[in-house]
């Protein structure tokens, strides 16, 4: 009996040693939150979560195109592995973020996520992705709280190449005060965190400059009848209405604002969410003279004109259809660059491991990364942008709109 036991113990021991030996031959994951194992012949999986349907589809499609050019520039490969590039629609809403977040978080092959397009979607998706160990980098989330240290919406693993709205909202207020000489303004948001925070930054800065905010109203993102809210705003007689919302409700505000007694000649201003040919198409002649703040493409690096735009034209057959394509291009390049740095094992297409924490650390440590949108350096909470904001003016039937501020 005891002999049998001894033999079986011996066999177990031998088996265990063999297993350990095997593990030693392959790679061992030492990363604190786990690794993605990429076997020889397997692709490196990078996913997007962007709005690619509905009224804001141009915003997400444009970013996706930008990131795709970065993949294309690399020949579709990183460290000898194909890059697998697919993803989900974030629908520019919390509901879409929940769906895309859950779906992507369940896929352990994903190394990094480029996205989301909209801050509302990220707010619900990020907790899921953060605990799944993903590195997430957004090209167009601009809500302030996402990178605010200690905020409940700031999660480990999150970075962005887009500017924070603390920059954009302040720039818009400065433009209104200095360039337009406006003394009274009203704001409208649509309940999304993007719009709500942006109009708050605008209102705070505008008041600091000495202006008066006559009303801070709200609409819902798919509202069509704006007469009530516009009449309510007209009663305060503002000289400018700041509505940093999205395309659908934005178009209705522009159209109906021009017809509301008392608001016919009031300045209207949106933000980067309304930088879209759909605004121009939807609002028709009413779009004349509407302002939008947005990243300043004229301050982008020389590569933008020389290489990126021709590549975009060649691949997608049009000029960029929104404003965050270059940010997405930079985001993708940062991710690929860091994967190259932190991957362990065979770096010529064989088995390799990508440490999830190591990848995050590498991304947060980014310093003076020369991208299209400027020299990017990341803060410990994930703000990587080199923000340059300009104000553009729409003219009937013309896209992109004309840059009018700052004058340099």
């Amino acid at each position, binding site marked *: 009996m005891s002999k049998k036991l001894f033999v079986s113990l011996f066999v177990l021991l031998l088996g265990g040693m063999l297993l350990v030996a095997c593990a030693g031959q392959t790679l061992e994951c030492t990363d604190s939150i786990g690794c993605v194992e990429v076997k020889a012949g397997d692709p490196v999986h990078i996913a997007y979560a962007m709005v690619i349907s509905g009224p804001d589809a141009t915003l997400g499609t444009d970013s996706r195109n930008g990131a795709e050019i970065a993949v294309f520039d690399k020949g579709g490969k990183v460290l000898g592995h194909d890059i697998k590039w697919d993803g989900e629609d974030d629908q520019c809403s919390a509901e879409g973020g929940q769906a895309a977040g859950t779906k992507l978080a369940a896929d352990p092959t994903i190394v990094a996520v480029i996205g989301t397009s909209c801050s509302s979607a990220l707010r619900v998706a990020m907790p899921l992705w953060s605990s799944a160990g993903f590195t997430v980098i957004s090209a167009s989330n601009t809500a302030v709280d996402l990178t605010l240290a200690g905020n409940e919406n700031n999660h480990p693993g999150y970075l962005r190449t887009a500017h924070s709205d603390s920059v954009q909202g302040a720039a818009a207020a400065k433009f209104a005060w200095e360039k337009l000489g406006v003394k009274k303004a009203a704001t409208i948001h649509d309940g999304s965190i993007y719009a709500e925070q942006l109009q708050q930054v605008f209102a705070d800065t505008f008041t600091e400059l000495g202006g008066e905010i006559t009303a*801070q109203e709200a609409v819902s993102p798919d509202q069509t009848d704006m007469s009530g809210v516009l009449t309510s705003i007209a009663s305060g007689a503002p000289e400018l209405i700041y509505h940093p919302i999205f395309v659908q409700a934005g178009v209705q505000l522009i159209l109906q604002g021009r017809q509301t007694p008392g608001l016919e000649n009031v300045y209207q201003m949106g933000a980067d969410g309304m930088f879209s040919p759909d605004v121009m198409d939807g609002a028709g002649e009413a779009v004349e003279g509407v302002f939008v703040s947005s990243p300043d493409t004229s301050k982008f690096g020389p590569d933008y004109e020389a290489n990126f735009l021709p590549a975009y034209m060649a691949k997608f057959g049009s000029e960029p259809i929104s404003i965050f394509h270059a940010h997405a291009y930079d985001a993708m390049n940062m991710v690929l660059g860091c994967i190259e740095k932190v991957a362990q094992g065979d770096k010529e297409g064989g088995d390799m491991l990508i440490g999830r924490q190591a990848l995050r650390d590498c991304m947060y440590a980014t310093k003076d990364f020369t991208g299209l949108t400027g020299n990017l350096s990341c803060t410990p909470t994930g703000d990587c942008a080199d923000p340059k904001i300009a104000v553009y003016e729409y003219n009937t039937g013309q896209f992109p709109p004309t840059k009018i501020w700052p004058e340099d």
Partner: protein
Amino acid sequence: MLKRWRQTVTATDLVVWAIGLAIGVGVIYGSIQTIRAGQYTAEQWINLTIDGLKLGEIYALIALGYTLVYGIMRMINFAHSEIFMSGPFTAVFLAKYLNSIGFYNTYPIISLLLITLLSAAVSATLAILLERIAYRPLRFAPRLVPLITAIGASFFLQYTFRGMYGNDPETYPTFDFLKGVFQIGPIPVPKTDALVIVAAVVMMLVLYGIVQYTKIGKAMRSVSEDKETAALMGINVDRVIVFTFTLGGISAGVAGILYSLIFHQVNFYMGFIPGLKAFTAAVLGGIGNVVGAWLGGTLLGLLESLGPNLFLSGLGIPAANQLKDAIAFTILVFILIFRPQGLLGERISKEKV
């Protein structure tokens, strides 16, 4: 007397009355506060009223479709919002084509008639097909069955149109002759609004006339009262039902064009919210009652437009206009509690239920 009263009134009734009373007091208090604050000029109140009227008349026109079908078939045609969407979402392509060849603003009246005709034709055809394919086989099924079918048909149509015309919104070009305002005394009325209100009212009068004063209208009313007896008296019930759906479809198609004249943008889910509002309007006025649909629609439009600025902002609620849809649906809930038959509706007798 008091004893009988005590027996019929339950605790639930008391709670419901208390809530109703609280809301009533809130509305009156809020209104007084707003009026005392004097934030709005008289002209702005008139503007809000006109906005409410134009929306209200459109709701009423759509509500007619719900009410006519309910009157005849005792079913809620939840796919009516998609019938409303199909017309203008199809006609927008004609409008864009006419605009691209320069016809649109050279012959605006003809163009407007053409797109309205197309929209009404598409909506009516869809309504007839819907009746033939989805509802007729279920005419003798339990009441819940056609209701579920209607909801299914609604989704089916919505996504069929999404498949046909795409996700993106399409935009109606603006008619030059509708720009600007009519000056009626001291009151500026936007030309578009005036046209919408007048056209909707005329359309409703015509429909009312058909139901009240024509032979087929008489047949509709008799089928509504008792299908079997009407059939025994030699009325072709199938024909009457098809005619009802056609009327509903035409009014939805016209309402769709009027809606598009105001808001310009159309898309595949544009019917959802107006459909729900019109349903609310139909219930508010008393479903099955044509005049009730008009009354319900007008009241709902006015409440939605005036409500947030009148009593919500007076209560110190920030960004009150965000809550205008909430007002509409709160009304629906309270009607269902206090007066399920609606303002002009007769109490539905047991046989009909």
